[in-house]
């Protein structure tokens, strides 16, 4: 049976022992740190309930909050732009940069900008964008995309990074000392911060009440990007707005605790405006691009809307047995892991990414840790049902997850059998007679790639029970 591109990437990833080791050790450490930062299980459950309610309420009032946010930001001197698609968002950013004659940009970590493929777009228009988060810097040098939402270079070990720096950074010696590697990055990037004409960033939360953009980070590169250049452009998905400032403390606790097991990040940067008249520094202009890019379509369905609660902590990745084994790149999407499997088919279309929700055992480990209680396993099931219902796909049928005729026929037959006791009993009898003598084709062939052939029992449960005097009613 021909495998899809996704399946081939999975098989490749499974064969890469280094990759699996790198992921397994990192994710195990994150999970352990999370447990230690939330030692009181009941308090954590209360906090998760509170955070889910905060996000739910914000989503329920989303159009009103976006308007409130816009008007507060505008009053604070931050210019707000709206983009329906990634392409429009990219163009808006480019137009702002071109209006200021900016050619060099420093950038803080932003998943939404990855979703927009912003760097590549700006490069095509002659604008150089330098990623300044250490992990992002590493993968930019390697010409890769993030393998994880929070720790983008988690798939690389120090030897791989040492070789990369030696190759790509002029004058950098080969060293596997982490402090040395950090020092090389610091030296390289400090010049970039000084010279950049603009800083780009994402947004973790936007507070409607006060017109404030909240950015969390540990390195200080985000503060550099939003504080050193004369122009700061932030990009944000429309779902990231929250109602009030008082909603921030519980969300921040959960975000950092769930993401990296930290009580708090080194910096929480609250931006409510550009430099004011008497200020000695700060950007002269701050812009915010609000990106829809399919989110309003997700929003339309009250059940699927829970997807938009996500605060991008990556905790579901850290606890996912599938992600742990294949890493982020195998998904071939901006957002990997459980949340990626739920979000991507909704953003790109079920006919293009419908197979993603099937790549889960529905074990529920993600749901158990999600800080905003997104019912991930339930949404995966829902999206599987959507894939089954979806019309014929535009491209790779296997990528759509849409079952072929044979599978549809099999499920139809299954439905007939489980509804009719006589057929069901006949099939059981057939199994007892056949034992393990099924031809290894189709699903059974796939099962038998790693398993022995299942053998039907020769024993007839119903007959034995009857003999034991167990009544049939």
């Amino acid at each position, binding site marked *: 049976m021909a495998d899809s591109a996704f399946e081939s990437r999975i098989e490749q990833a499974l064969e890469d022992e280094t990759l699996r080791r790198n992921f397994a050790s990192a994710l195990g450490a994150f999970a352990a740190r999370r447990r230690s930062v939330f030692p009181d299980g009941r308090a954590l459950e209360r906090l998760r309930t509170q955070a889910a309610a905060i996000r739910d309420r914000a989503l329920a009032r989303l159009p009103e909050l976006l308007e409130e946010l816009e008007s507060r930001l505008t009053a604070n001197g931050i210019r707000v732009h709206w983009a329906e698609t990634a392409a429009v968002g990219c163009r808006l950013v480019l137009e702002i940069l071109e209006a200021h004659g900016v050619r060099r940009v420093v950038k803080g970590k932003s998943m939404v900008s990855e979703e927009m493929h912003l760097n590549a777009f700006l490069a095509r228009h002659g604008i150089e964008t330098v990623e300044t988060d250490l992990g992002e810097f590493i993968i930019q040098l390697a010409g890769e995309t993030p393998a994880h939402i929070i720790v983008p270079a988690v798939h690389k070990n120090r030897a791989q990074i040492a070789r990369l720096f030696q190759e790509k950074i002029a004058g950098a010696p080969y060293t596997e000392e982490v402090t040395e590697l950090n020092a090389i990055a610091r030296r390289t990037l400090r010049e970039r911060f000084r010279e950049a004409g603009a800083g780009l960033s994402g947004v973790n939360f936007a507070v409607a009440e006060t017109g404030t953009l909240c950015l969390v980070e540990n390195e200080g590169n985000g503060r550099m990007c939003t504080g050193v250049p004369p122009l700061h452009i932030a990009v944000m998905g429309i779902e990231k707005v929250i109602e009030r400032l008082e909603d921030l403390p519980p969300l921040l606790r959960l975000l950092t605790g769930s993401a990296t097991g930290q009580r708090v990040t080194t910096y929480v940067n609250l931006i409510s405006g550009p430099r004011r008249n008497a200020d000695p520094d700060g950007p002269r202009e701050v812009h915010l691009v609000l990106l829809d890019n399919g989110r309003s379509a997700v929003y339309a369905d009250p059940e699927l809307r829970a997807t938009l609660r996500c605060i991008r902590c990556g905790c579901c990745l850290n606890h996912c047995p599938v992600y742990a084994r294949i890493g982020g790149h195998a998904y071939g999407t901006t957002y990997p892991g459980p949340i990626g499997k739920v979000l991507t088919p909704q953003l790109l279309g079920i006919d293009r990414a419908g197979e993603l929700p099937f790549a*889960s055992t*529905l*074990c529920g480990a993600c749901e158990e840790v999600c800080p905003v209680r997104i019912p991930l396993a339930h949404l995966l099931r829902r999206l599987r049902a959507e894939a089954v219902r979806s019309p014929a796909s535009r491209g790779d049928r296997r990528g759509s997850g849409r*079952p072929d005729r044979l599978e549809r026929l099999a499920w139809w037959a299954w*439905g007939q059998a*489980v509804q009719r006791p006589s057929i069901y009993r006949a099939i059981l009898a057939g199994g007892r007679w056949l034992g393990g003598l099924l031809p290894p084709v189709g699903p059974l062939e796939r*099962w038998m790639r790693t398993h*022995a052939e299942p053998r*039907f029992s020769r024993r007839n449960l119903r007959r034995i029970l009857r003999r034991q005097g167990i009544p049939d*009613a």
Partner: protein
Amino acid sequence: MSLAPRKPARVQLFATCLVEAFFPETALAVVELIGREGVAVVFPPGQSCCGQPAYNAGFREEARAAARRQMDALAGELPIVVPSASCAGMMKHHYPRLFPDPAERAAAERFAGRIVEWSEFLVRGLGVRLHDTGPPLKVTWHSSCHALREMEVVPCAKALLAGLERVELVPLSHETECCGFGGIFSVKQPALCGAMAADKLADIQATGAERVIAGDCGCLLNLQGAIEARGLALRAQHLADFLRERTRGG
């Protein structure tokens, strides 16, 4: 202090399709363990599959049809004992979600209220006390995802194991990690399923135990199939079968 649990006179058994097809002795073990406590078991003959395979494959209509069939076949007021946590979870937590129609949903909710996973029934419903008659033995335990997160009955299974005096339970280092079965996942993503099962087997082997006990037939099918494919000297066994074996003649 021990509270006498409310013991029903009779229960219905929902055997599950995997048990009927592959592990009939598991149903017999459950019937025996319950029968010993003086509770009568009835086996409604119209039962088939809970519908979870279709539900998880995205075939909602077929899953609904299966659910309707079971609700019909297992009508009445008696508790319904299920020897597999994932099937129990399907019937208890997902049946109500299958039906948009309020009347059907209400019926599904009443039905869901009767579902009880067998180990929970033994511990919380019957207050079973076991007498271990077997030789000293080292085993390990695999928490099925549905037992752990959906039915939350792992403490019951562990209480039953703890009641076996001569059985030493060696925990897995990744006890709560999925074994990789996932129903349709195992045939849609065979490489991933195999990799997860292989890691689980390595974890089991590292305990030095020769048997892994679980309470879910899906996991057992996966683990036993992977064990046999590798020719390992290991055995995956349902907790009910294990309890029956250990308490024979007791």
